[in-house]
């Protein structure tokens, strides 16, 4: 069975084709307006990603020095937590803390601080894996040879991981560059990003051609940017997995743990709980629909990545995925609106496709590219053994990729549960639990908003337990 992986690539960029067919005209946007917005977007993304990378790298050094695997897993979860929870929750917590201590989370620095809070732990966790997997032997050798800390950091860590740091910087940069929810809530008048401008042109002003021009400009910039980064990415394989005995300083663990504490203290500060709101807001049917959508999206991503792995290796497709960034959320949303206008009853299914289109590129960059270096030798050898497609999938691809695909499905499920950006473009208000929370925030019903956000966090915890259960079962079998 031969399926060209480039068809997957075509599927991922299908929103662009849908919109080019539906709106064949391009409209030029005022260049000074675009320049100002682009400058602001670039500036906040650059500062956010620089800070997140620097502090994240230090946090990663500290994490990699934890010897006990259970402690490591626990701390790693704290690192990941801020990037996994809904953006709405992050913004809400920061605003609460800001209110308490008279700190303003508005404008440029507000956006930067929140971006850093979300991403510093993620960078730390990913960087720690790189330090452990690739530098394991060098760490031990450095310790035995009595290398000083600064020399170790310069000659070993930085020298061998600068391409990885660049890659992590690029991943955070893209997240910050295409950020929509954070600038929308806390940006302010002079803090318009390209994504917000696209949204404004499309939803508020109805200027579809201008929105499309901006979205394509944004996409081209990101592809160019990622193309530059891709040529510098390290291609070394993982050697072994072992903790880092050299860097004993655990102080930088505080960096992402601090962001974890900030977020949850922020929620706790305004946490209100009244079971009566559950019925007042008629949350049960909305919650069931949202959970169903989240779990179904998670399952779809699980299957989609299994499918991708089964048709790899393919160097052109892998290159495409390394340079391709999903189009603007708003552009995907508009394409979904076009499709669902033809098939209104299937708009929830269309929304599911939208989430796949939105999350697959970023998940591929963050977690899959490194995994492929361990999957490819197994696939090569199995092909040399004349194993057919199904035997390879059953015995090699599925068992080796099960836990990663499960993790990607879990991530997608919690992101979908907390998303309102894409859902708001396609569904009616209050169709999902995240839309309910967003609308409550906008109407300043903060107590009820905090209650609904707490429900979202609780549901995400349930999804986490489900994920852990499935991971345990899979771990026993594979």
């Amino acid at each position, binding site marked *: 069975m031969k399926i060209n992986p480039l068809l997957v690539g075509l599927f991922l960029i299908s929103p662009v084709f849908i919109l080019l067919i539906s709106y064949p005209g391009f409209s030029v946007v005022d260049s000074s307006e675009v320049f100002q917005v682009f400058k602001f977007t670039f500036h906040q993304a650059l500062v956010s990603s620089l800070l997140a990378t620097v502090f994240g790298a230090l946090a990663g050094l500290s994490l990699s020095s934890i010897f006990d695997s259970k402690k490591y897993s626990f701390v790693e979860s704290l690192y990941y937590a801020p990037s996994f929870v809904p953006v709405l929750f992050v913004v809400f917590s920061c605003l609460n803390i800001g209110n308490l201590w008279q700190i303003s989370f508005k404008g440029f620095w507000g956006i930067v601080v929140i971006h850093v809070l979300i991403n510093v732990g993620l960078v730390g966790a990913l960087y720690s894996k790189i330090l452990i997997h690739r530098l394991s032997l060098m760490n031990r050798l450095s310790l035995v040879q009595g290398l000083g800390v600064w020399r170790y950091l310069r000659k070993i860590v930085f020298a061998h991981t600068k391409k990885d740091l660049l890659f992590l910087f690029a991943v955070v940069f893209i997240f910050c560059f295409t950020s929509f929810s954070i600038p929308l809530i806390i940006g302010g008048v002079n803090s318009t990003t390209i994504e917000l401008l696209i949204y404004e042109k499309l939803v508020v002003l109805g200027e579809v051609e201008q929105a499309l021009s901006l979205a394509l400009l944004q996409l081209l910039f990101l592809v160019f940017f990622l193309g530059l980064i891709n040529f510098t990415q390290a291609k070394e394989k993982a050697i072994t997995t072992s903790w880092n005995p050299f860097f004993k300083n655990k102080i930088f663990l505080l960096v992402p743990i601090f962001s974890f504490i900030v977020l949850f203290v922020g929620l706790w500060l305004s946490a209100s709980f009244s079971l009566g709101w559950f019925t007042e807001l008629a949350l049960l049917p909305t919650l069931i629909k949202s959970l169903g959508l989240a779990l179904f999206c998670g399952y779809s991503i699980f299957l989609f990545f299994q499918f991708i792995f089964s048709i790899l290796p393919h160097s052109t497709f892998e290159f495409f995925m390394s340079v391709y960034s999903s189009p603007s959320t708003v552009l995907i949303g508009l394409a979904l609106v076009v499709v669902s206008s033809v098939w209104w009853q299937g708009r929830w299914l269309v929304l599911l496709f939208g989430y796949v289109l939105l999350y697959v590129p970023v998940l591929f960059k963050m977690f899959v590219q490194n995994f492929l270096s361990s999957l490819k030798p197994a696939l090569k050898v199995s092909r040399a053994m004349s194993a057919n497609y199904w035997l390879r999938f059953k*015995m090699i691809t599925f068992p080796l990729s099960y836990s990663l695909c499960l993790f990607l499905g879990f991530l997608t499920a919690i992101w979908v549960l907390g998303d309102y950006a894409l859902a708001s473009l396609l569904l009616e208000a209050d169709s999902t639990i995240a839309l309910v929370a967003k609308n409550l925030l906008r109407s300043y019903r903060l107590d009820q908003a905090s209650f609904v956000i707490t429900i979202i966090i609780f549901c995400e915890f349930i999804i986490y337990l489900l994920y852990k259960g499935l991971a345990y079962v899979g771990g026993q079998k594979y």
Partner: protein
Amino acid sequence: MSVVKNINYKVGNFELNIPRFEIVNKGITLLVGESGSGKSTLVDLLVGFRSCREMSWQWNELNYSDLSIEEKQIGLVLQGGFVFPHLTFKECVSFAATARKRKESEWGPELNNYLQALHLQPSILKQKSSKLSGGERQRLALICAFIGQPKFLLLDEPFSALDHENKERSVKLLNNFTEVHGVPALVITHNQSSSLKVSSRIEISHGKLV
């Protein structure tokens, strides 16, 4: 005799340029060369992991290079003895045999013979291959290459992780396999054992035949 022609492959600053070389139809062809001379790249090209459009591999009136990787039915041992880390010893062997549509009733007794010949205990069959030592992995890779009844053997440093005694046992097994089954083998090694029955020898240096 199988004839390989027109290998012209460039990766980075390195170029593999071999106009023609021959592999004996019966017996072992030895491929030697210093580190970085292009031996493993040549193996990749022969298997089909890398492609070179001009390359042709004529064998038994077939253009072997036109066949897909699966159709070539090669018994392959990669440098370092790669095996599937998530499978047990027996599952790896079973996979290699099942891929070539062999039933356990056929390969089961063969496996026992290989275990005996390579001085491996039957208890190793239940061990996960990720827990095996380097030498055990290499012997497992060798067994997986043999069990699939290949038409051609390509062995890249198949004895590098073995001590002297295990190496001699593996060499004896390889000699026996090629003689009994009439399967040609291309063996890459730095350190040739005196007991390896070599029918032909090829030397590469800096991407070219010497």
